[in-house]
Structure formats: structure tokens, C-alpha cells
């Protein structure tokens, strides 16, 4: 490095410790971030709920439209709504435990 460059860099070092007080509260930022994360999560769950329910409704409607499937739909619905709580409740519980 030549003398000129060395002198220049030395001059530039004068702003090395450039500082002033700032009002940044890290704890508040963390809390704000948690609110944003929860909002994002809620939105994701809402979209998932909407997509899955509309798919199921559409599927059931299509099956009803097909001739000869009414009896099958009836049996399927009875079986599904009887068994669904036994699958959904343990799944929800285990996911909550995992989150905690």
C-alpha cells in the first residue's frame, strides 16, 4: 500500500467510532415480531381451512350428481362423521403438544 492510500485510510478512520444515541427497544421488537408471526400463522390456517372445506364440499356435490351413488354417500357420511372425531381430536392434541 502506498503512502497516499495509507494516509487516506487513516483519514477515513476518523468516522470509525461515529455514534449517537438511539431509541431502539429490542424487547418491544420481539413482542411485535411475535404478533406478526401469529397473524401469519392464523392467515395460513384460515386459507388451509377454506381450501380443504371447499374441496370436500365440491367432492361431495360431484358424488351426489353421479347416478346411483346416493346410497353410498349416505353410508359414507354416517361412517365419516362417526369416525372423524376419533381421528381429528387426537391429531389436534398431538399438534398442540408439539407446539408447546
Amino acid at each position, binding site marked *: 500500500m502506498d503512502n*497516499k*492510500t495509507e*494516509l*487516506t*485510510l487513516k*483519514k*477515513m478512520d*476518523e*468516522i*470509525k467510532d*461515529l*455514534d*449517537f444515541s*438511539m*431509541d*431502539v427497544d*429490542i*424487547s418491544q*421488537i*420481539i413482542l*411485535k*415480531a*411475535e404478533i*406478526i*408471526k401469529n397473524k*401469519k400463522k392464523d392467515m395460513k390456517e384460515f386459507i388451509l381451512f377454506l381450501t380443504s372445506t371447499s374441496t370436500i364440499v365440491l367432492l361431495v356435490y360431484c358424488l351426489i350428481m353421479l347416478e346411483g351413488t346416493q346410497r353410498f354417500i349416505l353410508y359414507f357420511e354416517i361412517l365419516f362423521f362417526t369416525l372423524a372425531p376419533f381421528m381429528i381430536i387426537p391429531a389436534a392434541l398431538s399438534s398442540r403438544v408439539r407446539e408447546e
Partner: protein
Amino acid sequence: MDEISLVEEAKKGSRNALNQLLTENYSIVKGYIVKMTGDPNLAQDIIQETMLRACVNISKFKPNAKFSTWLITIATNVYRDMLRKKHPMELIEETLETKEVGPEEAFQIKAEYKEALDILLSLPYKKRSVFILKHYYGYKYEEIAQILSCPIGTVRSRLHNCIEYIVSEMERRELING
């Protein structure tokens, strides 16, 4: 607790670990952004936004780089976004504090401070970033390349151009003898 353990704890949702990580790296991000912007108000906004983005996206952080490198990457992106929005800038000049010296010396120090900052701020932000990270914080070329998402060769050439420009500006302003 070391940085990797703190990151792991923060990813699991520990507020204390996240707080410690951000507090430990606060001064480096602050110093970098203050030099990048030269504007106290804009610097504060960028730091807050950087910390917020880091908290929200902590799960995406991969510990193959230092946490401070990741924070500086976010800060650079936030600064670039703010430049695009053409945030009005208020220079730091008024907030400079001089140490306990006589009025003449204080005036000279302030003038040199101002000139150095002025030269730094006249550089394009990508080159300024390279110079600050290399000269003031001693980052490696690889780390700077990672922060700015560019090849190492580009970092080297930007630094070279930067130093050439600063030397020529110092000469033009008669701050060093030609």
C-alpha cells in the same frame, strides 16, 4: 452460551435467547448502518426494521455464517428498499459530538469528520457497503460476497475502485498532499 446454541434456543421460541443475540450484535449493525446512511433518523428506522425481520425470520437462519453477517445482510436489503422508496435524508452533521478539545481543534475535527463522511456517502451504496465492511469491520471477501450476493471478484474490484475514488477525492479536497 455460544451463538449456535442461542440461535437454536431462539428458533425454539426463547425470547431471552433472541434478546441476547440481538443485543450482542446490535452495536455492529448500528455502526454499519450509521456509516451507510449518515442519517440518524433513517438509521434508527432501518435498525428497527432489521431487528423485526430477523425476529420474524429467525427460523430461516442457517448457522453456516455468523449471526452478525445475517443481520448485516438484512440491514443492507432494508436500506436498499428504503433507497428505492426515496426516503428523505437528514445528514448526521448536526449530531456529531467532538471530544473535550479547544474550539479551534473541535472545529477542525468536525470539518474532517464531515469531509470523510461526505466522501463515503458520495459512493454508490454497493461500493460503500464493501468499503465499510472491509475497512471498518475487517470482514473477509467471502463474507462480503455472501452479504451482497455477488462474486468475490466483484467485491475485490469494488473495493479497489472505492479506494481509488476516496484517494482522488481526498486529493481534490486537499485533505492529503498530492
